[in-house]
């Protein structure tokens, strides 16, 4: 499993900037109280990986692939009007914890 700091770099960051990403992350945490700490968010992201990747490390997809797969399968969430993949919303939440 990737470390939390590397996960906390959503692709959105370059486009929206840190403040907007932090706000999205905080909103996600408020919407998903069960994922309101770093460990829970890391596990939630890890649990979204395919079974073979989680248990055998086979074909472990890059985080961006997980994000695109979310969109392909409708695993999306609307935060601050942005239509986001659930995985990247979790990344934003991690960012809100770990960025200073």
């Amino acid at each position, binding site marked *: 499993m990737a470390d939390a700091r590397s996960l906390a770099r959503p692709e*959105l960051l*370059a*486009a929206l900037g840190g403040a907007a990403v932090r706000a999205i992350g905080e909103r996600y945490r408020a919407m998903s109280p069960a994922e309101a700490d770093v460990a829970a968010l890391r596990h939630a992201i890890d649990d979204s990986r395919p079974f073979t990747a989680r248990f055998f490390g086979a074909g472990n997809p890059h985080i961006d692939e997980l994000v*695109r797969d979310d*969109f*392909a399968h409708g695993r*999306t969430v609307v935060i601050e*009007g942005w*239509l986001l993949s659930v995985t990247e919303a979790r990344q934003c939440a991690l960012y809100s914890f770990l960025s200073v």
Partner: protein
Amino acid sequence: MHTDARTLENGSLIEGDLCIVGAGAAGITLAREWINGGRRVLLLEGGGFDYDPRMQELYRGESVGLPYFPLQAARLHYFGGTTGHWAGFCSTLDPQDFEVREWVPYSGWPITRADLDLYYRRAAPILQLGYDEWTAAEWQRRDPALVPFALDPGAAWTKMWQFSPPARFGTLYRDAIVGARGVHLYTHANVVEILANEGTTAVDSLRVRTLEGKEHRVRAARYVLACSTIQNARLLLASNSRAVAGLGNGHDLVGRFFMEHLEMPSGNLATLGNKPPSTQMYAFVFGRTKARGEIALSAAAQREHRVLNSTVALAAAPLAEQGRSTFEWATPDVVDKMRVDPVVPEDVAASAAVPRTFHLLTRQEQAPNPASRVTLSNERDALGMPRARLDWRLTELDRRSFRGFYEALGRELGRTGIGRLQMRDWVMEPPTAPWPKSLGGGWHHMGTTRMHPDPQRGVVDANCQVHGIANLYVAGAAVYPTAGCVNPTLTLVALTLRLSDYLKAR
């Protein structure tokens, strides 16, 4: 030949084979088709060759529904009609626009897109469009810098637009019409009533008035109304000497199904990646751009999400700024400036930077709605004709479609890694919520004499003949049963060419 109806002796009788009422895009297109045709064609225009506030005043009306432009500002009442201030945006309707869509009440045309293909080709040069090319691939071949987004065509696609200079019919075709053999233009000839025969099965003649108080009679074998969506309905409804509810209105359909295009800023796009995708295909500079793409959902995706047809235009802009709707930026003053001043290409400083954030302007068809309608006001104009009363209304489907469209498009843009889409707050509100202040149309008027083979469901048949009136036809966007999501001018010119062929063949 040209005659100013004000110079005729009062009570004159004007006779011809075909009478066209209205010299705008439809009327002039039709008249041009009959030059040297061996028939006597009468082209009646209420205004003159120049803008006249007294003529515009005849178009003033009431607006009792959703907020709308002043009616006298939305259409021009002189030779050339509203092409005198249009912006030149052209695109074709999509095949699904003609189909019955079970989630869109009253949808379906009695003709198909294929029936119009030939006429789109003929319409393109009339509107001074360079090419009859409407696919992104064709435009990319012409200019390799125009690269469409790599979208799954089953989900979304790049729909092409072309831009007329814009063609001002009033100056472009004036000499051809005035000098034409077989076409006689009468200016200052305002039709105030269509007089039917005793059985109201055919038009006997037209009553024509001038602002100076003269009244003439026009008689022809066949008549085509081409004086715009609202004015066509107004004239039919006001022609009630023999038919109390108005001519062609035996089933209370004339004036109903008035439609606009909802042109509203609805969201933002942020492109992603170290090398963001080229967006030159989607860029637009007024007066310079010949063609550009807008993004639309596929027909299959529209069916899956049960939404109306839409496109979205990208405008590079910082996210912190707010985009404006067509109603908000194209105010009557701005539109009038487009009439007065020649179109000057915008000067845009070249920038090497690829933009990464965009405002999204949606163009959405309005769902056909019988409650959205034109009726007659109790007030009369200077010619004694009842003014138009517009009751513009929208439905929950109109509202819900914005969100459905944006969610489906956002998923496809996310899946492909192109970027992320943000919806405006009002897009996410329930479909029963009031419309936002940015509610706006495109100054496009459609419907009111919709096309349907069944007289109980449409005013005109597939050949644009008014049901039950043997020699009366309608040209223009008034006959559209559904609006599609593109500006109406190209299609109305194409339909007029089709009507012309039909009339010639009879």
